[in-house]
């Protein structure tokens, strides 16, 4: 508790100093700083040797490798005490060895930053097994309207918490008779309680007022009914937070007309996939939103919408924002808060420069220009940087 108040007072000191320059960005800085200090109750900090952390890096396919190189560049420049252990997972190869090596590396280091794998049929079960074998049960995405990015809807600030291990993604399918296929959707009490608990804890930490459970319990009465029931049970233990529920089709309709009504949303796997993509689209696209997968022991950070961006790979036009913001989330997780906020503020400042916007948000800037500008902002704040 003492740490919490110390942090609050520190942010009060820093705010006026940075406030003039950063405008809206200060709000983002403030909330993240206070919230992650209290996150220690959920996940223990990974080990570090000699003051430096080792993080597993999985480049992936498409734009993954180039964006992660930029992350490394920015980290090197800002003297972030993080070393990357690179593990390649070759999606062209059919065996499971690569993905098993990656999982072992993540177990070893506790934290990973990854690019997306090509959605080849083979690979997807392996990638899914990464989430389940590491028990990364909560996929968290924070969708915030960024100042400087033109979108149809303004003032969006939604946290989406998606159950990441079961539901429709259990990959349990069989063809009972030729031409008749059954696919099983599994909902368990334990996982539903767990994800609901995570959602409410996170909502409380971040000072959020309302949690909405998204479901289709009017049709899937037992499955989503169980999920909803678990959410209600957990909600009763958090009387300070309002709980309501909404059917998924109505949710998507509300999201495209009035997304400002949503605060924190919790839902099973498939609806989470749909809703996170809708929200990412609403705030400006896949290039802007970072995502995180948390478990009790491990954490893996990536872009929120899991696209490989095959068509824009290696052309220096990809938007590095999502990956860089994901790396900042990772730094927060590693308790390197100062580095996280400095990079994050630099990113948000760069976002205000419309001429630097990459193609996906309507500009003509290149990836490297954006990254250079970010590094320039970091340097201008007086942080220790290395030559580059």
């Amino acid at each position, binding site marked *: 508790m003492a740490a919490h108040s110390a942090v609050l007072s520190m942010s009060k000191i820093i705010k006026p100093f940075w406030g003039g320059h950063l405008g809206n960005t200060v709000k983002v800085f403030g909330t993240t700083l206070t919230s992650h200090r209290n996150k220690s109750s959920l996940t223990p900090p990974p080990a570090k040797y000699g003051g430096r952390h080792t993080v597993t890096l999985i480049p992936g396919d498409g734009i993954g490798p180039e964006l992660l190189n930029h992350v490394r560049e920015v980290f090197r420049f800002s003297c972030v005490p993080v070393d990357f252990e690179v593990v390649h997972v070759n999606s062209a190869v059919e065996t499971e060895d690569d993905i098993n090596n990656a999982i072992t590396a993540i177990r070893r280091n506790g934290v990973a930053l990854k690019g997306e794998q090509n*959605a*080849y*049929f083979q690979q*997807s079960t392996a990638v*899914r097994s990464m989430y389940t074998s590491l028990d990364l049960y909560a996929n968290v995405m924070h969708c915030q309207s960024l100042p400087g990015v033109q979108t*149809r*809807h303004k003032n969006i600030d939604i946290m989406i918490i998606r159950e990441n291990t079961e539901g*429709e*993604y259990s*990959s349990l*399918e*069989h*063809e009972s008779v*030729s*031409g*008749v*296929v*059954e*696919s*099983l*959707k*599994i*909902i*368990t*009490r*334990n996982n539903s309680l767990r994800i609901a608990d995570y959602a409410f804890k996170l909502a409380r930490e971040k000072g959020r007022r309302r949690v909405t459970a998204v479901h*289709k319990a009017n*049709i*899937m*009465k*037992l*499955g989503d*009914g*169980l999920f909803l029931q678990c959410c209600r049970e957990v909600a009763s233990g958090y009387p300070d937070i309002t709980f309501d529920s909404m059917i*998924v*089709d*109505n949710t*998507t*309709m*509300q*999201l*495209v*007309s009035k997304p400002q009504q949503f605060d924190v949303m919790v839902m099973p796997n*498939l*609806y989470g*996939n*749909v809703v*996170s*993509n*809708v929200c*990412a*689209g*609403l705030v400006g*696209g*896949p290039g802007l939103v970072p995502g995180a997968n948390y478990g009790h022991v491990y954490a893996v950070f990536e872009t929120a*919408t*899991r*696209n490989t961006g095959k068509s824009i790979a290696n052309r220096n036009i990809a938007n590095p924002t999502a990956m860089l913001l994901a790396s900042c989330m990772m730094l927060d997780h590693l308790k390197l808060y100062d580095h996280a906020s400095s990079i994050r503020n630099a990113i948000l400042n760069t976002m205000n420069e419309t001429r630097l916007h990459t193609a996906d948000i309507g500009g003509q800037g290149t990836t490297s220009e954006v990254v250079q500008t970010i590094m320039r902002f970091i340097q201008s704040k007086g942080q220790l940087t290395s030559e580059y």
Partner: protein
Amino acid sequence: NRFQLEMQTVTLIPGDGIGPEISSAVMKIFETAKAPIRWEERNVTAIKGPGGRWMIPPDAKESMDKSKIGLKGPLKTPIAAGHPSMNLLLRKTFDLYANVRPCISIEGYKTPYTDVNLVTIRENTEGEYSGIEHVIVDGVVQSIKLITEDASRRIAEYAFEYARNNQRNSVTAVHKANIMRMSDGLFLRKCREVAENYKDIKFTEMYLDTVCLNMVQDPTQFDVLVMPNLYGDILSDLCAGLIGGLGVTPSGNIGANGVAIFESVHGTAPDIAGLDLANPTALLLSAVMMLRHMGLHDYGNKIQTACFDTIRDKKVLTKDLGGNSKCSEFTADICRRIQDLD
């Protein structure tokens, strides 16, 4: 022109709540347009048939079987009445396998999205809504998603036929076959097979999440979308949201044996029922869809133009559209425009 004047019977199911008033609004507009439709009103409240099974009243079924075309207002689903939802019952009775929703931006009803012009075609009989669920052990529930070859082929064929008959350029299959490899894989395979027979229509495939992501950023890139039940439910409501909600979205259900029931998909709005405040646009546009389905394109276009002109003019809008007028005034304005168009 004898064919044009030959009256065709349509089974009208006014429904509950605001159903009756919007149905009479539609009937009045059709009368003004002199559309060759004879309405046969029927009630579909479930009754218990011989053997204890719930069914729709036999006179309703008989009327539908004869006329093959139906127009339905909103039906309320009573919570503890003991019988399943009426919509479900209708679907099962007439094997309504395709739910079609054309989503076209209404000029004059501003939403953040302009120039939306797409159609969602949703498989409506199986998929995630098969209703097969069980508790395996305490705390573990299993819901079964069913995909069959026949249903997938049928919906794909309907989608391509619709595209061809309505001059649409492309059909996109929406799926998650990277995750649900066998079930959505089967659906996708059937779509690909059917696409072979419709070389004049462009066929593409897209993951559900990619569609969602792109839909909210640029809906103009989509044309006809075909998909299994759950994705269809979500996407069709998403698209309805893009053009302004369920109050202005038409919907049609196509069944086996040539049966087609067109409906408004909004609720019964019991709080404004009987107060002449309802907006008949959704039911009217569904009725226009019905006219087009029956080949009466001229009447359909005339009525649609009048309706859109009224909305664009903004003088006589109902409350949900942002105005202050009554349902009867809105209807009267449309009727006036139809007479002017003649």
